[in-house]
């Protein structure tokens, strides 16, 4: 269908918890292979549930590919669950 890759990588994230409508903003993440991705735009953030746990889905881009980061608000962990890089 397209070049969407579903993943389940635990990633390290630098995020800012500030004010406003979107108080949590991931800025950068490092993948297990050491590759660092600088986030240039957060497309959408929406909450979802995994069982009774709330997970925040961040659809982000670095300008070259789109990614989905999932922040588990109970376990305080970040996972990279999707990369789409790109659609040609």
């Amino acid at each position: 269908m397209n070049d969407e890759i579903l993943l389940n990588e635990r990633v390290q994230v630098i995020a800012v918890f500030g004010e406003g409508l979107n108080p949590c903003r991931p800025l950068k993440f490092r993948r297990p292979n050491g590759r660092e991705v600088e986030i240039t735009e957060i497309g959408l953030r929406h909450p979802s549930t995994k069982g009774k746990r709330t997970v925040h889905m961040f659809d982000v881009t670095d300008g070259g590919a789109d990614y989905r980061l999932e922040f588990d608000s109970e376990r305080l962990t970040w996972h990279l669950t999707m990369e789409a890089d790109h659609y040609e």
Partner: protein
Amino acid sequence: MRNTYNDGRPLIMHIDLNSCFATVEQQARPMLRGRPVAIVNRRTEHTMIVTASYEAKALGVGLGMSVKEARRLVPELVALESDPAKYRYVYHKMMDIMRSYSAHVTMKSIDEGVIDFHQTSQDVRDRPLEDIGREIKQRLRDEIGVAMRCNVGIATNRFLAKTAASLHKPDGLDVMTHDNLRDVMSTLELRDLTGIAKHNEARLNSVGIYTPLEFLDADVSTLQDVVFKSIVGEQWHQRLRGWEVDDRPHPLKTAGRQYVLESKILSREEILQRLHNLCESVGAKVRSQGKVARGVFVYAKSRDRRYWHARRMASAPFFSDQAIYAQACQLFEKAPQAIKEIGVTCYELSDDSDDQLSLFGDQLAQEKHTASTIDEINSRYGDRTIHSADTLGTGIYVKQKIPFGSTRYL
């Protein structure tokens, strides 16, 4: 009944998100902006397109087209599987924004809603509604994302407000009043009017009505006695003149689900498992609205495009997944072979009240307790945490998708 045009202040605002699911995906995935995008419910080439982005529509991609067909027209089309959680979030954000202006907000579907400003605060009413419309557009961009666009229509009733919202897609803002009603109608075709599709158009054509203006000028007796042969004719007469006839609740009468089988080589037993899964989902829908059902309807479409259906009314109301499945299963015994699609619907829904004494009171109470406990666990720990062992393994195929018509289950 009023013969004049409604010349009151337009206080109904219709808001419609443009190509909603595709726009939300383009918002979420910035790399997709400006590209032709289609949303589908399944990752196959034969699946139907549910929503197409404006870029895709401009290239000829239409709803209901298969991905394969669409790719013939637009090879670079990006087809994405729908992501209901994302759309539900945007729906709730949109509803929150609308409710900040009036308590009288009605969501018509997952991507459109109506704000009634008649009983809102004076502060809000003192403002021109066009300003509020522009503010809502800006708030959608600020609070959801920069790619979000919506159409806003303002008029004296729901019908004209929706008509106004469809005039300048995408991202339009139009007001229809008694002053410009005829001008706007003269630019439209009958099928542009909500509620006028093939059959109603044919009815109107049969009495020489071919344009919205002719429809508007038709007298009430023609519409009522000749065209629609019911009160519907008078309602159209009022609706077209800007008088409100559509502000009424629509009680839930049926709840159903359908499913296109994922494979052509499923055994009868496997098809029944999928039917069972649908029954569980329909049962949860019925109970979530505090209803009980009296009838079950099942249908099947075969691969040679034949349609089969069967229905049954029960002597007593029922609500549990087991009761629904037991009846659906019995009805399904007469279903044809080579099935492509199945569906089950509960009908004759009524409020669940314990008033009526039953000979089987204890048994019913126990069944109700079990069903509500399962529903509570599923709502807390996630859908299908508890389900029938028979449907084990069907969850990955029969996924919950977006309800287009009703917003009751969002």
